[in-house]
């Protein structure tokens, strides 16, 4: 588990911080980057099957900790991690 935490030190490849929120750099259509980000993340938590929108399970688009926005989403897993 700790290896993955270190691995996600490159989270800024997929997210940027704005007003204390970690926002996805890509669009809601960009499955590839959502999958790549989730593979590097130790915070991934499967959402209800009914809320999943990516056929690839390990994807930020299927994670309970993503909060959809009009464009993209906010990762609450990263925000929580920073506050620990």
């Amino acid at each position, binding site marked *: 588990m700790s290896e993955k935490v270190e691995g996600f030190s490159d989270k800024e490849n997929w997210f940027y911080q704005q007003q204390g929120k970690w926002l996805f750099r890509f669009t809601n259509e960009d499955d590839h980057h959502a999958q790549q980000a989730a593979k590097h993340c130790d915070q991934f938590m499967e959402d209800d099957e009914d809320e*999943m*929108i990516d056929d690839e399970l390990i994807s930020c688009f299927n994670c*309970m*900790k993503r*909060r959809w926005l009009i464009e993209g989403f906010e990762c*609450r897993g990263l925000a929580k991690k920073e506050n620990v």
Partner: protein
Amino acid sequence: MIKSWLICIDDTDDIGTKGTGEIAEEIMDLLNSKALGDHVEGKVRLTSSSAWVTRHQLFVHPDIPYTSHNSAMCFEILSSLTLAEIKDICVIHLKAESALAADPGLAIIEKSLLTTSAIQRLMAFGFETKRQVKTKSDAYELAANLGIDLSEHGGTGQGVIGAIAGIGLRLSGRDGRVKGQLDVGLTNSTKELMLSVHQIKKLTGLDAVIELNGFLLNDEESVLVSGKIKAVLQNNQFALLVYQHRDELTGEPSWRNALKQQLKNY
């Protein structure tokens, strides 16, 4: 006397807790089991397609305090229970199962009491709630005007907005995905099956099979089904959504059940 009821809940969950869809399904089962105890006719509803829970996507906006996706869950039952009895069952279960940080809302309406004008207003509110920020006052005002039983059960009670919006969207017959997956006989050893539309309808209880533009497939057409089989509510029908796949080598077209990426727009 058996009556048809629409019930919708919203904002019951939090990260890591039971989802709103699951809670809705549990309430529907509780109500159906109660109906079964009283009336044999109730049994019909357990296998009826209209007994499915539908998920309705609402607006995602920074000013709306949703958990992660902002969707409401709605279902229909036939029951001889009174409004007070139905509401009691809903509220007890909502309070027991909702997350501590949730803001649950509950809307209940007996369908026969809805006039055409009321249905139109509910539908309009539902579709507006998909693209505008609505307030609790908006929701309560509409409920009072149309005789909808709308109530909140913890937290800020913001869930009342989605609850009444979900009723309108369900009534529209053209919004939402059906909660859960359909069983067409796929197993670990049978990962895909070629089925006729007729077979799919018979196996699942769905009303129709439609392609992405809304066109109906004939009963004789074949669909290669695999993975998770999900239905949508379109054209007042519970339908399997399919897309046309072209074989990479032969270019031969075939129908396949929609992918999650395609279903997300419903």
